């Protein structure tokens, strides 16, 4: 790890003043579960580390009629233990519990989950987000068993966020604050598929801090997350599906289906959602939506199996949301 100077501000104002205008000047530290590994591997070599855990206004879960406000430094463990998350937002609760290590749940934060860097092994070995060697991506002809099946490049890593798909399905927004102002953008727009080597995979700028996540009320919204993984213990999922269904009687009035770990961003399965819009939730319509979830996939040499997993994950998430899981 490269040596850095360290600050632990107690207010957001102080924290923002400590950030730089370029990446590499200052990194934000919260749970550290990704940040410290990135620094150990020299993927990040910041001159300064700004620890935001002491900033009180970045903590806390607030539930009201307006929905759920999740502070950036709220841990997975806090989310897991929150009664509103458990009852009104099961899609979020399942996503949290998918992080199978109690240690990571005690340390990792909601903001950190959205801002963590990709786990792609080419990225983690220093080949950058596009995994380039001599101007060519190493992924199509390399070991791509866990890489993207949607998007078609030039980036092939998968978004590692556990909460992203559920938050997008639930219509959440994130607040990004800098010393000169603030903006609130949809969780969907927060994630970006980088088109060149110098761009990032989120909308966050180097002088900004993601301060909170705003989730709209979900009472009466059937929602669930289903995760497919290789083993029960601590590991990354192969594919996840988060679904949120607004109902009018027994008919689906609005449907949002978002896949995780299949593309450089959480992937909205628009065709699968359309397959259910205006229809009743039956085993047949669920099957149709699941089939549509694989539409448009462009799997690589070693990951066609993930297309089938995507369909299965959508089917099981829908069954769970409908109460038949």
């Amino acid at each position: 790890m490269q040596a850095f100077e360290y600050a632990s501000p107690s207010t957001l104002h102080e924290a923002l003043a400590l950030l730089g205008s370029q990446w590499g000047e200052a990194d934000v530290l919260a749970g550290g579960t990704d940040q410290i590994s990135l620094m150990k591997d020299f993927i990040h070599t910041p001159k300064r580390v700004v620890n935001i855990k002491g900033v009180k206004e970045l903590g806390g879960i607030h539930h009201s009629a307006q929905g759920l406000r999740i502070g950036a430094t709220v841990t997975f463990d806090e989310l897991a233990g929150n009664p509103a998350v458990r009852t009104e937002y099961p899609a979020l609760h399942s996503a949290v519990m998918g992080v199978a290590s109690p240690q990571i749940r005690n340390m990792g934060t909601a903001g950190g989950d959205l801002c963590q860097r990709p786990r792609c092994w080419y990225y983690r070995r220093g080949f950058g987000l596009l995994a380039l060697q001599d101007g060519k991506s190493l992924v199509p002809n390399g070991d791509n068993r866990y890489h993207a099946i949607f998007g078609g490049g030039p980036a092939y890593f998968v978004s590692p966020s556990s909460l992203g798909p559920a938050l997008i399905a639930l219509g959440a927004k994130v607040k990004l604050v800098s010393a000169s102002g603030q903006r609130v953008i949809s969780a969907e727009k927060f994630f970006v598929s980088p088109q060149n080597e110098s761009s990032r995979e989120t909308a966050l700028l180097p002088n900004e801090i993601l301060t909170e996540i705003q989730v709209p009320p979900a009472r009466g919204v059937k929602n669930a997350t289903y995760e497919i993984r290789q083993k029960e213990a601590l590991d990354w999922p192969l594919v996840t599906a988060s679904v949120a269904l607004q109902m009018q009687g027994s008919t689906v009035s609005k449907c949002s289906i978002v896949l995780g770990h299949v593309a450089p961003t959480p992937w909205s399965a628009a065709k699968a959602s359309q397959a259910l819009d205006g229809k009743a939730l039956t085993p047949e319509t669920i099957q149709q939506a699941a089939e549509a979830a694989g539409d448009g996939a462009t799997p690589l040499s070693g990951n066609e199996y993930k297309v089938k997993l995507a369909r299965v994950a959508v089917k099981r998430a829908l069954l769970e949301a409908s109460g038949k899981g």
Partner: protein
Amino acid sequence: MSLKQEPEKRKRKSNFSRRGFLQGVGITSGVLTTGVLEKEAEAQSSPKVAGPGEVPITLQINGRPYKTSVEPRTTLLDALRHRLDLTAAKRVCDRGTCGACTVIVDGKVMYSCTVLAIDAQGRQIQTLEGLAQNGKPHAVSRAFVANDAQQCGYCTPGFVMAAKGFLDKNPNPTYEEVKSGLGGNLCRCGTYMGVRKAVLDAAKEMKGAKNA
């Protein structure tokens, strides 16, 4: 480790203090002792920027304070092992994955390889060294022995701390709960069966034993 034996590091430490002090009060020259410089720097500059050289820290471990100095990049695990000679927590993956470095911080199990030592100040840190009481091994440790829950033993201290932290929150667990509750620890020898049985046995023994 005494600072007297580390002239190089000591020099860096006083550099940090002087710079912090000068920034804080706007003095451009002066001769003061290190101790005064540190205190002044703390009082004047807000928020304080520490490092990249060594800075003095105090860690509260197993109920007592330990003073040392570390660079901000030093992890809690490395501070425990290399500075404080508390070597029970093991460095295996060093990437927050295997659990061999597990300690309990403010009542919660954490990977000490993935916490900065400087950030662990002011928190209650429990390591395996603090588990035995009056020379008697903790109920969890005894159950590990009784169930042959270790082979090479390298993951064992982490497992014992993970189990202690788990049982503090789930005093009467089912087998399935034990399995998921220890999901953050790996054993390459594959002693999981013995470990899970040990945790169930320890749960039985600890019931009613308030300070076990």
